[in-house]
């Protein structure tokens, strides 16, 4: 993948130019579907865009004793990392990619969460520390399942290259791994039942407590881009390749929308779970999926 392709994928499609409106759309879709499930009207279309523009017009607080440059850098790093993750998605197969870009994608998807943790600690606020500690525990709990499932998908196709994973016909081991990733997605995206770190009324928004204005707008944007990256990863790997490019794209978009709705239904149907129950859920229940997936793929490799 040469530099021009990389820049095009990062900036244009499926990078920033496409992903930012898509992120706003997905954020609106989540809020609207949760509202409709609760018999409410919900926000009008374009609400995340209005929120973003309004936040750009707010003044930034002065925070003495806190390193302002670092605090401003974390949301920027989070947005760039999640935009890079979206840019790596194999939406159009056979269009560049490199060996091992699945690993880069997973690493880039972790960075916004790590930025949130560090931002909470660097804000020197009591609530930021609590929120960051919860987020760190959440990260440790779901990452075990998430990474094992991703590795099992890669091992089943003998490749860590996203293009070949998306291009190859799917096997049922891959779907098992994708279901495990899907179970980890609510925790990655901080929606109910795993919306601990930014619990609003309990800990005054956790790591985000001292952020305002443009930085908060960037955090919202990185949250939307994480949605796109997470849902896009599952959607692009789940749709088997067909002869028509447009059919592939339509399939990926359709499945992505369905996944957004499914996650919203889960978010509307559940309440926030405490951190110890979350860790127990991932380490005791869901780990079975990931273990089955990876052992099945390793056995398959041993046989072949």
């Amino acid at each position, binding site marked *: 993948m040469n530099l021009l392709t990389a820049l095009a994928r990062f900036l244009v499609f499926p990078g920033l130019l496409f992903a930012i409106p898509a992120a706003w759309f997905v954020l609106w879709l989540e*809020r609207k579907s949760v*509202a409709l499930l*609760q*018999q*409410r*009207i*919900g*926000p*009008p279309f374009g*609400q995340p*865009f*209005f*929120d973003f*523009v*309004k936040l*750009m*017009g*707010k*003044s*930034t*607080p*002065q*925070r*003495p*004793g*806190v390193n302002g440059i670092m605090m401003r850098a974390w949301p920027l790093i989070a947005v760039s990392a999640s935009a890079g993750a979206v840019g790596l998605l194999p939406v159009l197969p056979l269009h560049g990619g490199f060996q091992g870009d699945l690993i880069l994608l997973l690493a880039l998807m972790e960075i916004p969460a790590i930025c949130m943790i560090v931002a909470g600690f660097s*804000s*020197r*606020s*009591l*609530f930021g520390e609590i929120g960051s500690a919860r987020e760190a525990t959440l990260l440790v709990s779901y990452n075990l399942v998430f990474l094992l499932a991703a590795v099992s998908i890669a091992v089943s196709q003998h490749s860590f290259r996203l293009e070949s994973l998306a291009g190859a016909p799917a096997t049922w081991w891959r779907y098992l791994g994708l279901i495990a990733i899907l179970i980890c997605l609510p925790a990655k995206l901080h929606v109910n039942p795993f919306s601990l770190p*930014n*619990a*609003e*009324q*309990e*800990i*005054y*928004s*956790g790591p*985000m*407590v*001292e*952020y*305002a*204005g443009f930085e*908060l707008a960037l955090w919202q944007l990185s949250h939307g881009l994480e949605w796109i990256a997470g849902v896009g990863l599952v959607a692009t790997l789940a749709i088997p390749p067909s002869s028509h490019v447009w059919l592939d794209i339509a399939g990926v978009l359709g499945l992505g929308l369905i996944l957004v709705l499914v996650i919203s239904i889960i978010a509307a149907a559940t309440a926030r779970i405490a951190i110890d129950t979350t860790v127990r859920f991932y380490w005791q229940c869901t780990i079975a999926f990931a273990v089955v997936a990876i052992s099945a793929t390793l056995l398959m490799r041993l046989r072949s």
Partner: protein
Amino acid sequence: MKLWTRLLCACRRRSPWIFHMNSGSCNGCDIELIASLTPRYDAEQLGVLLQGSPRHADILCVTGPVTHTAAPAIQTVYQQVCGPKAVVAIGSCPASTNVFIDSRVLVGPLDKHIPVDVFVPGCPPRPDAIVRGIAAAANILAERRDSAASAESTASSATTPEEAAL
């Protein structure tokens, strides 16, 4: 730049994020404020979100006659809200201390401490009146046409409401 200012003001009207602060109220107005977020009245149709941190909010909704322990907390939280900001006094307690007028623990109506933009009378006010009050405050924010540079800068302390109330 004029187009940007017009877009900014339109978005300020459509996205009023509120932070709710109780300065000693009986909780009647707090209950009605929460009721205005329920499906029947649904303040989210106007884009209203109840935020957890004062730094995230534009509109500070205050209930309660201001007790003398709550007064410094109200001022700290008001300074923590990032400009441009508006204040809605919900109920007749913040407007005038209501039936608690002779109480020795009160330090007077809210506008002695912070500038108030909208008063919503009632004891407690109906949730639709509260939503109308928040919409009026959003309109005030939109029409004030503050630029980000001229908006009031917040105070320097990074204390949180919890620590301020102690």
